């Protein structure tokens, strides 16, 4: 790709991504005000977060893998069940994965 083509690609794609973000913010408030929509939004929030856990915890490109992230998530779940603070949960997960990788696994 030439420098001009590369810059064009970067700028057009960035503009498209920004337009997509802004479009969401410009959805009329009245569309989102009903009780039914707020019920759906509550469930969409759960689905988005759970889906991000799966992608961030198990996906490697387009493959699903079991590596050091999985025991780290298990430790995080245990910490959450014991009502540990957010930062502790995140730190324990990082430490678990880092430790296992330092030992040569995952």
């Amino acid at each position, binding site marked *: *790709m030439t*420098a001009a083509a*590369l*810059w*064009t*690609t*970067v*700028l*057009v*794609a*960035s*503009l498209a*991504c920004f337009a*997509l*973000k*802004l*479009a*969401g*913010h410009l959805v009329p*408030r009245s569309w*989102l005000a009903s009780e039914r929509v707020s*019920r759906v939004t*509550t*469930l*969409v*929030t*759960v*689905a*988005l*977060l*759970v*889906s*991000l*856990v*799966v*992608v*961030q*915890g198990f*996906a490697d490109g*387009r*493959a*699903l893998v079991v590596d*050091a*992230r999985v025991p*780290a*998530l298990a430790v*995080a779940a245990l910490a*959450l069940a014991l009502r540990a*603070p*957010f*930062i502790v*949960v*995140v730190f*324990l*997960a*990082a430490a*678990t*994965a*880092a430790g296992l990788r*330092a030992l040569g696994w995952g």
Partner: protein
Amino acid sequence: MNVPSSTPAVRAAVRQGVSVSVATGLYGVSFGALSVAAGVGLAPTMALSLLMFSGGSQFALVGVVGAAGTPVAAIATATLLGLRNTLYGAVVSPLLEVRGWRRLAAAQLTIDESTAVAVAQPEPAASRAGFWVTGVGVFVLWNTFVLLGALAGDALGDPRAWGLDAAAAAAFLALVWPRLAPRRAQLVAALAVVATAALVPFVPPGIPVLAAAAVAVVVGLVAPRGPGAAGGPTDADDTDREAVR
């Protein structure tokens, strides 16, 4: 934007935002190193990172360029992956209530992490604090570390060795945890896991998240209201009680 009064919920949201910003921002090293290695120079790499500011789309565009793909393919892939940010914008916009240039800033900062922290909060002031702290925090750290990665290559090491990928996964888990009490939320969570895991091997990254959201919309529209749904007055009441415990 009002300066949020410092309630415990606001302070918790700020702490969560900072944690998520660090775990995510440091990952910029990977993108900077990969982008330069793929033949995208330093200046285009930084332009991409500052202007596009959506990790999945950035990695995808650089991947297509590195594989000698066409500009159209690179733009289409990055745009497809950015589609979920439209949904995020629609979800966080009513929480933020911003106008003018702040709305443009909010749009640019609308990504997985800022949305996740904002929607997980029990009250609007905490949602706003969570969104802005996470959005600005990730923006500053991500771009700083993209620059470092682009300049230093792999010399800074692999963020995976520090467990930062697991930290990000754990952060999302911690954000959804208090919302899983209602029966219907558990059903949606299970379906989201199945939908995501089933689609990851077959569609571009970013699409499984949209599919999981679509499943939640269907459940929300077809499931009857009633005692079997949440075991309490309403789903929302249950969720709120759990979130502020």
